[in-house]
């Protein structure tokens, strides 16, 4: 176990940004915090990194870490190459050599000014810098936000490579399709709470869709209502009526909708 969160709470006045969540991350895992905007993912990361003071709870972090923030901002007036020099001065764990290699793979010109980079390129530069820190665990907040599919796949591929080499990744996302591609363990978060936390493959195996007539209630999450029937997403043992397989997409939507009511 490299990271353990117990009963973490962070309130901003009335707003329960993080509302009593607990989870564990094992070494070498890719752990995704998945949820709609405002679910509390970023606040959770910030509490772990001591950028926010939790109101309650325990955080145990067993290892060195590096962090890719949600807002990808670097010094505008520097060139990419100068940015690497600055990072090298600031961080003992940073390998400039490694960063140059990653940036070459991404085809980012080193002599370009940060200000002139597109959002995608800026993210690639930032990701390259973060992954060139030789640490145990990488916290990535929306690492693929706003990237086109090709660049996104490159970044995902890099994340997977790091994990296959024994590094731990904790990242947040609201994009299901990419979480499906790389995450092993997923915590589904909404309204500050974690509603499901398991291996992605196990979540797929656990839930089914069942179609019942309109006045029947099933213990589970209501996914859809049609003229004559209701569709619930529920665990296999509680399923009733006509049973259909459920995709992760459906499971996620139903769980998140369920809590918003």
């Amino acid at each position, binding site marked *: 176990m490299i990271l353990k969160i117990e009963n973490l709470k962070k309130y901003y006045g009335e707003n329960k940004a993080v509302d009593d969540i607990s989870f564990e991350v094992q070494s070498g895992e890719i752990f995704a915090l998945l949820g709609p905007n405002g679910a509390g993912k970023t606040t959770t990361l910030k509490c772990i990194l001591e950028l926010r003071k939790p109101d309650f709870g325990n955080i145990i972090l067993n290892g060195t870490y590096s962090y890719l923030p949600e807002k990808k901002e670097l010094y505008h007036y520097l060139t990419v190459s100068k940015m690497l020099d600055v990072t090298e001065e600031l961080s003992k764990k940073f390998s400039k050599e490694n960063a140059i290699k990653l940036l070459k793979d991404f085809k980012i010109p080193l002599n370009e000014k940060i200000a002139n980079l597109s959002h995608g390129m800026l993210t690639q530069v930032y990701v390259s810098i973060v992954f060139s820190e030789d640490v145990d665990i990488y916290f990535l907040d929306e690492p693929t936000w706003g990237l086109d599919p090709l660049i996104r796949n490159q970044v995902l*591929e890099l994340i997977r490579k790091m994990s296959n080499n024994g590094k731990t990744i904790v990242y947040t996302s609201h994009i299901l*399709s990419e979480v499906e591609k*790389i995450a092993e363990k997923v915590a589904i978060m909404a309204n500050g709470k974690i509603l499901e936390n398991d291996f992605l493959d196990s979540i797929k195996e656990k839930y089914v869709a069942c179609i019942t007539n309109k006045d029947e209630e099933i213990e589970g999450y209501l996914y859809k209502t049609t003229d004559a029937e209701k569709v619930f997403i529920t665990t296999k043992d509680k399923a009733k009526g006509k049973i259909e397989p459920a995709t992760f997409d459906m499971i996620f939507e139903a769980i998140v909708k369920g809590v918003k009511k």
Partner: protein
Amino acid sequence: MWFTIDFSSHVPVYRQIAEKIKMEIIQGNIKKGEFLPSIRKLANTLGVNLNTVSRAYRELANEGIIESVRGEGYIVKKEKMKKFNQALLNQLEEVVEKCIKAGISHEKICKIIEEKTRGENV
């Protein structure tokens, strides 16, 4: 070894991998006694996590289709899979039933099966 994986399918990724490997074995692409790619290698070629491949291998090992050789990897133990074949036959039955429901004639269905199985040792 490479095959496509449908990440958005309701079928867990490790199960898709296990099924595809079974097909590879049945088709004779990997033979009895031969090694499967290492977990790391297959994870990298398929673009999945190590644990996902290792879960697929464990599943195949539990079914007795492959066997772990200490420190060396996994070898193919069985080429014929009764259970898997039965599952395929069940699928065929389902499709045939659908065809009948859709009103496709007995002759047409038989013709396809006849054509596809001709010359094979079934």
